[in-house]
């Protein structure tokens, strides 16, 4: 005697992206907060010390935002022209920024007026950074050269004019206080040592370099330019490790997450891609409304801030960790009952009788076991099942159809239930995996409720919706068939004799023709 077999719910393999740990992690952000800036946001920098404020450089201002503030908590506006690249020092107390007028300004976080101004350049300064000894600043700009400044004396220490085009990005090593790199539109990334008179290393990126990044260990260098993100091994003399081509427009910014396990890149194609730094595969990607110019990730990955070309600042906060402990505790039995009997060790003479495992059946299965067709259908038409697991609803409908009781289960329902049914059918009938079953269901519903059409406005509306959905689908399929026909023609033209096995019979005449043509 066999036990009742529950209805088999066809599990469909999920097409498209797989749910991995990464997708779960990166999806764990709230809906973004949009803040309008005055111009294109060219730099976002997080303060390395709590409370992790961030400086946003846009137009001729630098705004400092708090973690959850939508209004800037501080503004530096002493710029005559567009400001560039506001960067925090390691201790978070000083801020340096370049400007269109060629002056590099150094601000105290508390003050308003610049502490120092490094002058002497007429061309705009696009990149500014602190070396890791905190007392020196490097800068680069449209004068093709990079400079090193001493903060206390506000004087230039050394100047390198090796690039042959605008310098647009740079980065200081965290390991060595003398090393910094700059990337330029001359397709190169150059590594400088403050102790040497000229560049130590030159890396050919192949495209105008928009952003460079050094790994915390200092061993790996990432450069972005054109559609490419390239990773170089500095210790091996600038050997190319990987070249990533995942964007379809220029990559504008790079960023590492706090653990250094993931690399983020933003691009003009409105995407932020997240790579694993071990496999260099894209593990997740974000979609934004407009082209991305700058990108920053707060320590602990709490916040992702993205700046766009249209001056919108997009801020995403991580959702707080969900705590379901309370609800779980309720379900668990008391400790006493839980432990009861568990610790008993059977003695040698004891005869063990295994208790048969109690099978738990779903509600619809219980009803189907008792041949209660209508009730079983009711059970799967409940909103939670219908919305989240439509495959269960469809599986039960199919089972009822197999048993020949689907018609009687569908019949005799009131306006509300018919409305519910029709909503479900109209919504799901176009899904290929449900189509065969739901078409029969739709047929039956129209058959059964034909006589009462016109009596209820709601039901009539649903019928029209169903008609519309099916009509749309038919149009869509027609278009697809047209495309398929075109592609077939193209493929047939390209098919060579060698690999005709697939299409051999269909294209037999055609290939022969091609062959004869070639012979001539």
């Amino acid at each position, binding site marked *: *005697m066999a036990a009742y*077999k529950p209805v088999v719910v066809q599990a469909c393999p999920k097409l498209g992206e797989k749910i991995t740990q990464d997708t779960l992690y990166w999806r764990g952000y709230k809906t973004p907060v949009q803040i309008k800036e005055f111009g294109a946001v060219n730099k976002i920098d997080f303060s390395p010390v709590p409370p992790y404020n961030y400086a946003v450089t846009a137009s001729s201002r630098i705004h400092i935002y708090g973690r959850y503030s939508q209004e800037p908590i501080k503004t530096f506006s002493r710029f005559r022209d567009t400001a560039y690249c506001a960067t925090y020092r390691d201790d978070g107390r000083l801020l340096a920024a370049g400007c269109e007028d060629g002056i590099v300004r150094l601000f105290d976080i508390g003050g308003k007026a610049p502490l120092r101004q490094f002058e002497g350049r007429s061309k705009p300064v696009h990149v500014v950074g602190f070396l890791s000894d905190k007392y020196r600043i490097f800068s680069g700009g449209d004068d093709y050269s990079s400079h090193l400044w001493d903060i206390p004396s506000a004087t230039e220490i050394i100047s390198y004019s090796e690039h042959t085009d605008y310098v647009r990005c740079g980065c200081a090593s965290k390991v060595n206080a003398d090393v910094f790199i700059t990337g330029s539109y001359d397709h190169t990334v150059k590594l400088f040592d403050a102790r040497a008179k000229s560049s130590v290393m030159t890396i050919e990126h192949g495209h105008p370099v928009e952003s460079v990044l050094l790994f915390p260990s200092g061993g790996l260098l990432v450069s972005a330019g054109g559609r490419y993100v390239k990773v170089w091994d500095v210790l091996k003399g600038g050997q190319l490790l990987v070249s990533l081509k995942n964007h379809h427009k220029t990559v504008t910014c790079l960023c590492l997450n706090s653990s250094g396990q993931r690399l983020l890149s933003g691009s003009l194609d409105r995407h932020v891609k997240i790579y694993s730094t071990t496999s260099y595969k894209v593990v997740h990607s974000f979609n934004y409304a407009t082209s991305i110019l700058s990108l920053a990730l707060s320590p602990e990955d709490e916040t992702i801030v993205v700046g766009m070309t249209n001056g919108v600042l997009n801020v995403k906060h991580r959702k707080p960790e969900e705590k379901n402990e309370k609800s779980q505790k309720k379900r668990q039995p008391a400790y006493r009952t839980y432990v009861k009997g568990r610790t008993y060790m059977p003695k040698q003479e004891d005869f063990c009788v295994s208790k048969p495992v109690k099978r738990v059946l779903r509600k619809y299965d219980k009803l189907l076991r008792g041949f209660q067709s209508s009730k079983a259908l009711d059970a799967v038409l409940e909103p939670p099942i219908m919305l989240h697991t439509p495959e269960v609803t469809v599986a039960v409908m199919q089972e009822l159809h*197999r048993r020949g009781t689907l018609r009687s289960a569908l019949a005799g329902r009131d306006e509300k239930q018919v409305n519910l049914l029709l909503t479900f059918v109209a919504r799901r009938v176009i899904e290929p995996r449900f189509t065969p079953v739901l078409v029969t269901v739709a047929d039956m519903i129209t058959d059964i409720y034909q006589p009462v059409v016109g009596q209820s406005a709601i039901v009539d509306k649903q019928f029209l919706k169903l008609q519309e959905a099916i009509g749309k689908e038919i149009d869509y399929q027609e278009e697809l068939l047209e495309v398929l026909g075109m592609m077939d023609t193209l493929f047939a033209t390209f098919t060579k004799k060698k690999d005709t096995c697939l299409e051999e019979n269909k294209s037999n005449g055609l290939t022969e023709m091609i062959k004869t043509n070639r012979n001539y």
Partner: protein
Amino acid sequence: RRCPRGLRLPRDARAPSAGMTAFPPCRYLLCALGDFVKVYSVSTEETLRLMGGHADLVTGIQLNPHNHMQLYSSSLDGTIKLWDFMDGIPIKTFTVGSKLLALYTPASAEDSAFVVIPKKGERDTFQLVSVKLTKGAGQNVEAKELSVVLDDVGASMKHIAFGREGAYVVSVKDVNLQVYFFKRKLLNRFSLSTVKTKGGDNHFSCVVCHPTEDCIATGHADGKIRLWRNFHHKKEYTYSTLHWHHDIVMDLAFSMEGTRLLSGGVESVLVQWHNESSCQKDFLPRLGSPIEYISMSSDGALCCTLHTDNRITIINSNLRFSRSIQGLIKSRDVKTGLVVDPRTKALVLNGEPGHLQFYSLQSDQQLFSLDIVQRQYIHQAGLKQSDLVKVAFSARGTWLATVEESEEVTDPELQLKLWFYSEETQSFQLNTRINTPHDNHITDMCFRDMDELGDDSLILVTAGRDCVFKVWVMVEDTDPEAQQSVSWSCDFVGSYHNYQATNCCFSEDGSLLAVSFEETVTLWDSLTWDLKCTFCHPPGNIRNICFGRLTCSKYLIGATDYGFLCCWNLLTCALEWSAHLNVVVLQPDPLSEHIAAVSWLSKESSLFVFKPNEPRPVYIQRNLCKEKILLAAFVPRDEPEIISSEKYLWLRKSQLFFLTDTQELMTLSTKSLEERLTPSSKQLAVEESLPVTPFSLLLGKHRRQQAQEDVDLGKPVVHNKQEQASPAVKELLHTPAHVLPSASFLCTIFINSLLISKENKSAEEVADEVEMESEKAEDDSDEEDVTEMEQEDTSHMELLGETTCKLSKSQEKELRKIRKMDYSWISAF
């Protein structure tokens, strides 16, 4: 020397088993199967005896009401046989003369039985007659004293029932019920309306009588059960109705006291009605297949149901499923063909709906049933069920591919499933499920059999009516987090001029794939999937194809619709020979070059066995059987059989089995039927048949004592020892499990009881035993011994000359002590 028709394995479910009866202590179950009566042990489900002797179908079996060791059986060959089923010997044969369709032996009838025979001169009319079973000497007795009891009765066993103490007999036919009272010689007829009202159908399907009251229960075609009372009066009779079944009531049975009524039908649910009221009922659902017969054991402790698929279910009196006896399950339609499981050498075919049965040919038992469809089967007429249609095993049996489809024409719901044999669970586990592998029905499926290359090269090919064949390969999943490492996916789709693909077959080395497309056979290279060449033999579609084996591997054999058997040479790409033969089945032997072809011509099947390299057949058997043979399979033998006759040399390595359209499984055998049957018919020990009563226990004790006395008297030792050992084992086996001590404790006793102790080996050892016995007697005086020794020790100094002798004595004593210890150790057990 050989049996021309082969052995018909007992698979015939046509057999009525109304006589299925359990012996009082519920030990045996008797069942009529085909021409045989089978005796099963209820406790072990084993077939104890197969009683053959009737020349035609056995139609009824009844226990002799006056001697429960005897059995009456009736057959279509016109004889009633009286059997001693303990020994399986026929005691008497009564020849009646005409076909016997049913047999009844009510206890009240002293020396007569009631049989149903066809009425002379009229077709399809039957009458119930009583036959005088004379007590004449001799084995064969003519029983010609017939007296008609009832006219115009139903031909089935279920249509007649004898009432309380045989006072009346009830017969039902169509919508009429007749009751005949023997004492009053009164015949009452009742009829129901023939009009089929809304869902109602009053036709009778079966009848039973209450064992203690005047009450008749009848089953009807619309699922109603009617309980008739007061039928002594022609007018004032009453009946009440019980209705649960939605389809015909197949059989009814009253419990011994008559308080419970069991009914069963197509729903395969056994319903138990209490006190003849419709509100109190219990169900035993999902018995697997429609219930055909219900039978109660004579002590009422067990009940069995016989199902349409040739299975017997034994059910406890509290309506709990106890066990089932099943051989080859009869399925509605064997669509899968006969396939041999390479692992177990079992025959694999459709079993229960949606299941695949593994049937062991050696033991006539179902090894296991694999649920393929995994869906609740609804036993209801007119439903479109889905069932298994194709099965294929990989060469080593590690992979199993199954195809299931539903009967619906528009949407066959095709599913291709691939199962992997898991060594841990020792069963097949679903690996991949492919929905709609083809757009239309799958016609054939085969694995590439390559033993030496291992599973990596495994390829599955399916041919479909949607004009393509598809090649499926194993794909390793690179994702380490995935649950399984391999899955199957489609690798190649091939077609030929938009013809339907009908058959596919790999050559022995796996390099070539032959796919037949209607009239044409195409050959494909299995590496590049290039079309190599085509063969055809117009007119007529290709029905079967197969490659030759071993030395004949360069040949391809094909059979066409128009009755041609063709052999193509693959090297020359030309037709080697062809023969005019309407081949239904073409089956190559996997272990030799031989190919068996079964033809169907003018209502008889003939068998031809040939080698592809010679057009002359090796063996021809015309008129193999009257039924159409649909399927055949070569089952490899465990060890080659020694066959002297050259004619049957092809049967040396494997055995050929056939399945006919009536689902009878047959085989060709060089041995006669009797030879094959002997090993199975063991002698039933009389002792075992005795029920365990307090008296028998007493008797047993007495016997044991006697046996021990025998030992004392010095009767042959070996024999007695066995007698002594057996009670210990028996006690162990007969004690109820819940009072037994733990197995680890019993184990030593059991093993020791099996040991042949030393005493039996030689007379010396017997003497030893005696010595030990005497020592045991000395045991009490042990202390005295010690004191004696002390005394001796004191005198030791004085008598130096005797020391050596004395020492040896003390040594001897010590040795004895050791022996004593040994003995006590043994006696502990």
